[in-house]
């Protein structure tokens, strides 16, 4: 299938190109549907960075096309200036080291930021609803 015939992939590409900071996640920032997405949202919110968010759950093709485009198998996926920064693990590591603030161009890059806790905490809160 060529690119013109693949409107979902083109829409994803357009969203990544059109938003400086964009998070593909399960659920919404207000109601994340997965612990990994929730923690990634928490990391961005802790730096008070505005970001666009796309819920991948409504259509399984979004996840499929996104992962093919990004060569990254899991959700969430954070893109900054068109580049994949990473998923939850990398984003939290970068938050703690101060690199996330650097990449996002905000204050707080002194490595003093603590990773946010998920409300209710604990590994058993983590669910994959795909």
């Amino acid at each position, binding site marked *: 299938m060529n690119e013109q015939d693949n409107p979902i992939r083109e829409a994803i590409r357009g969203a990544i190109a059109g938003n400086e900071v964009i998070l593909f996640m399960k659920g919404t920032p207000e109601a994340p549907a997965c612990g990994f997405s929730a923690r990634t949202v928490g990391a961005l919110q802790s730096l008070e960075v505005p970001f666009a968010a796309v819920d991948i759950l409504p259509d399984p093709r979004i996840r499929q096309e996104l992962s093919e485009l990004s060569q990254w198998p899991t959700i969430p996926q954070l893109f900054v200036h068109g580049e994949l920064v990473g998923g939850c693990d990398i984003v939290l590591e*970068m938050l703690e080291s101060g690199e996330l603030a650097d990449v996002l161009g905000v204050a707080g890059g002194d490595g003093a930021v603590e990773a946010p806790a998920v409300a209710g905490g604990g590994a058993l809160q983590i669910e994959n609803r795909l």
Partner: protein
Amino acid sequence: MPDAANIKERIEAGIPGSQAEVEDWTGGGDHFRATVTSPAFAGLSRIEQHRLVYGIFGEEIGGPIHALSLTTISE
């Protein structure tokens, strides 16, 4: 269904010289957490390091393995 020991074996077999510590995060056999140390990570970005590990499992990530949380250490 994969278990932590199986995932550890496959990572260590798939990445030359690597050592992996893997735990079943929830006890449910589908959310795992791994710390992987390998000289093969030298010179790679975090994204590339994680891709190397994810690549071992292909379609299983997001399938039978719902989540594989990674910490990679270059050595």
